[in-house]
């Protein structure tokens, strides 16, 4: 029982990263039909921005709580901004081009981001400062760390906030409208390009939060970390029904649990195989995903 609880909490923690990253894939796909294969690297860039801020904070006398908040906010803003720049210069000129051109561009962006970080930060592992210790508490015989709780709570708050944004603000409603019918959205006076930029900003900043969390949780980051997380988060988005926001959240948590349980009961060496089988299985058996019923109900 204690092992089970341990695995559930570990699964929800990593599932939170996947869910936050999966949201970026799904929102962008929902409104521009583009699989942004550079999104995993956006997550990685967020982790590095967070690392830069936290390293500076650790060297100063700033209380760690404020430093952490600063790191999260700066990582969100800067990574969001990078997402917008990528959209503007790499994707926007291609929005009516054949899907293959966009796919190749996305791979190019991915390579550029990885090599950019490689140049600036080097190829080794960068260690996140130990601002938060591994203290925790016992729950049903399992040791739960404060950082796990913090990650899960913050992720749920962000996901709840995103849901409210998409359903109860004008920009969010415009996003849903434009996912359904871009021309009709234009006729309503919606500046579609602007709303697409906002979507990239939101998706990238959520990925940045996940990147900082991953750094805090696993303590080490490197320029290649976006690949595995990107693949798992993409699988989560497909599992939940690509384009479907609650689906991406649920898909992320499911993949996290799957990862924890396969590591706990089988072997962590099999995790990637299992995740890959889920991806292929979903695409073959139910390409619309667990929650994607009709195509119109994308967001």
């Amino acid at each position: 029982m204690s092992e089970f609880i341990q695995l559930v909490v570990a699964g929800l923690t990593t599932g939170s990263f996947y869910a936050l990253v999966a949201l970026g894939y799904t929102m962008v796909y929902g409104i521009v039909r583009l699989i942004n294969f550079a999104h995993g690297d956006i997550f990685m860039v967020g982790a590095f921005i967070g690392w830069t801020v936290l390293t500076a904070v650790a060297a100063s006398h700033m209380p760690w709580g404020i430093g952490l908040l600063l790191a999260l906010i700066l990582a969100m803003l800067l990574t969001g901004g990078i997402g917008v720049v990528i959209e503007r210069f790499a994707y926007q000129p291609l929005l009516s081009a054949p899907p293959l051109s966009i796919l190749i561009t996305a791979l190019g962006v991915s390579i550029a981001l990885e090599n950019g970080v490689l140049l600036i930060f080097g190829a080794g592992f960068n260690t996140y400062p130990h601002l938060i210790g591994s203290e925790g508490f016992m729950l049903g015989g399992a040791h739960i760390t404060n950082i796990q709780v913090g990650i899960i709570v913050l992720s749920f708050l962000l996901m709840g906030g995103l849901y409210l944004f998409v359903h109860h603000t004008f920009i969010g409603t415009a996003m849903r409208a434009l996912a359904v019918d871009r021309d009709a959205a234009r006729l309503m006076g919606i500046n579609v390009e602007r709303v697409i930029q906002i979507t990239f900003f939101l998706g990238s900043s959520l990925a940045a939060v996940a990147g900082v969390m991953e750094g805090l949780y696993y303590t080490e980051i490197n320029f290649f970390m976006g690949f595995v997380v990107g693949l798992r988060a993409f699988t989560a988005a497909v599992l939940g029904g690509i384009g479907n926001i609650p689906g991406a959240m649920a898909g992320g948590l499911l993949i996290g649990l799957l990862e924890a349980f396969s590591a706990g009961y089988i072997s962590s060496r099999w995790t990637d195989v299992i995740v890959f089988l889920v991806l292929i299985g979903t695409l073959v058996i139910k390409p619309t995903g667990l929650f994607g019923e009709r195509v119109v109900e994308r967001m």
Partner: protein
Amino acid sequence: MTLLNVEGLQVGYGKVEVLHGIGLTVGTGEIVALLGSNGAGKTTTLRTLSGLEPARGGKVMLDGQAITNLPAHKIAALGLAHVPERRRLFAPLTVEENLKLGGYLIRNQQAELKRRIDAMYVLFPRLLERRLQLAGTLSGGEQQMVAIARALILQPKLLVLDEPSMGLAPLVVRSIFAIIKRLRDQGMGILLVEQNARQTLKIADRAYVLENGGIMLEGDAATLAQDRRVQAAYLGGAAAA
């Protein structure tokens, strides 16, 4: 007063030119019909006016201002509203969300927007009972009401409608045409694309006939209704008088 002035408008898709330089005008408080057979280029004309298709030549003036090839959202802001072919509602959104999106450009004036949405519920009482229903689940007639209401929220100077009667029962068509007339009487300019030439020429003030990408005939609606070529092509032959 001339509200819309189109001159030498050329539009195409890929290598094919669909409109070969057409001209038309719409004044305030006037219903102008644009008739033509399938594939004549009516929808293309309207989509170009509202900025959804780029013009390759010619110019479009709205209320004295050039709007040729402006982005669609700017044209909407300048007072041209377009009710598109097949309505194009946001099906998974509620009726009220559809209407709110019609007021996207005045989203910061909440009280005013609410007042205008309420005015639409007065104009189309059926929509009030269905305000929280998903737009995609409405009947065809109700959907057309949402499409028109959504276009009226910004109180446009010019309303262009693409086959609003498509697929609707005669009674519903009559009530929609009655509303179009009422808008005209309030001073709005209306450009109406229709297949149903007989009924359209009855409510229109003037009309243009578009064939093969050019304006073939134009004139008074009443005169055109008597025109032998129009009768043969659109009014079911000489029997119609």
